[in-house]
């Protein structure tokens, strides 16, 4: 029994680690995105104020950043996965 509890604790810890790592990865990703875009916007507007070409990379990379945000904060092994794990655990306990 104690071994099972240890395993469950380890798995929770592992999951918590993964979620925290994803969130920090997203923050790093966003920071790099913001810095690079700011540099491109400055180059664009100091050399020539006309067409805002830096918005093309901002759009493409921005879609990637949004996807990263969704995977880190919205779909983080969310409620469906939790419910399914809970159900499996209950089933296993019933079998025993």
């Amino acid at each position, binding site marked *: 029994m104690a071994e099972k509890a240890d395993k469950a604790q380890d798995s929770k810890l592992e999951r918590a680690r993964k979620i*925290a790592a994803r*969130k*920090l990865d997203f*923050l790093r990703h*966003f920071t790099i995105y913001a810095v690079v875009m700011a540099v491109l916007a400055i180059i664009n507007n100091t050399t*020539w104020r006309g067409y805002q070409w830096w*918005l093309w990379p*901002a759009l493409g990379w*921005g879609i990637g950043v*949004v996807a990263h945000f969704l995977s880190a904060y919205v779909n983080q092994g969310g409620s469906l996965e939790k419910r399914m794990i809970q159900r499996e655990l209950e089933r296993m306990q019933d079998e025993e």
Partner: protein
Amino acid sequence: MKSRRSWVDFVGPVLGVAAMAMVAFSLVYLLGIRPFYRGASYRAVPGAVSAAGWVRDEASRRFDGPFERLEIKNVSGPVRIEGWSESSIEVSYVKEARSAQALEEFEIRMQPQGTTLAVQPLYGRLSGTQFGPVAFEIRVPPSVREIKAGSVSGHIVVENLPADVDQELESVSGRIETGRTRGLKARSVSGPVRFTSTGGTIEVNTTSGRVSGRILSLERGDSVEVGSISGTVELEAFAGLDAAVTLQSVSGSIACDFPLQLTEQRRNRLEGVIGGGSVPLTVKTVSGRIRLERAD
């Protein structure tokens, strides 16, 4: 009770929303450029700013004089030419630009030279992406005998003119539509051409645009020549057509409703005479379908 949430849980969603806003803003700006605009808005509120940040200006000028020829060269935007009973030419336009400065530099030149009025947009020193489309609406008097109109990316529509006006119309990607013409030269790359003709010399060429024409009359000395690479050609001619017909398509189908005295018939070529064969009528395509219909 101590909160279990760290600053990362608060800052993350804020940055996520900021990234979404950046994507949405980029989309609005980049789609708002409209490099291939062919819309047909002739009416606009002067000085109004559209959703994508375009500034508009509308103006109208009249030119008095016995004009016989109108020449207009547009780059982006529709051109509509209409006949009216007054003796002057009226040019109305709506021009668009990215900023008030660009709008000021965006000049519409209207130059009367003898009996010809030439109209043309002139772009300033700023980058081309600063200038938007110009929509023209021009009213011409019955004295005008010749019209030459071109637009790279815009529809050209001519209507309500007397039947004896020669027209030369050219567009790359816009539609060409003329209500009633005598001599017609129309060229288009991808836009369709639709015409109604009362005779004269008809020359229509497209690359992939469909050609639909109604021929109301033809006399000795007139001619019809239509060519297309992949566009379908459909001509409807009056019942008393008197023509030497050549219909040729490399891979498209050929159909003719008129009783044809055949002089040559091959898989991809039909040659014959309708009536006395006084007017040459030639249609040639590479892969486009050809149909010569008889009007009831």
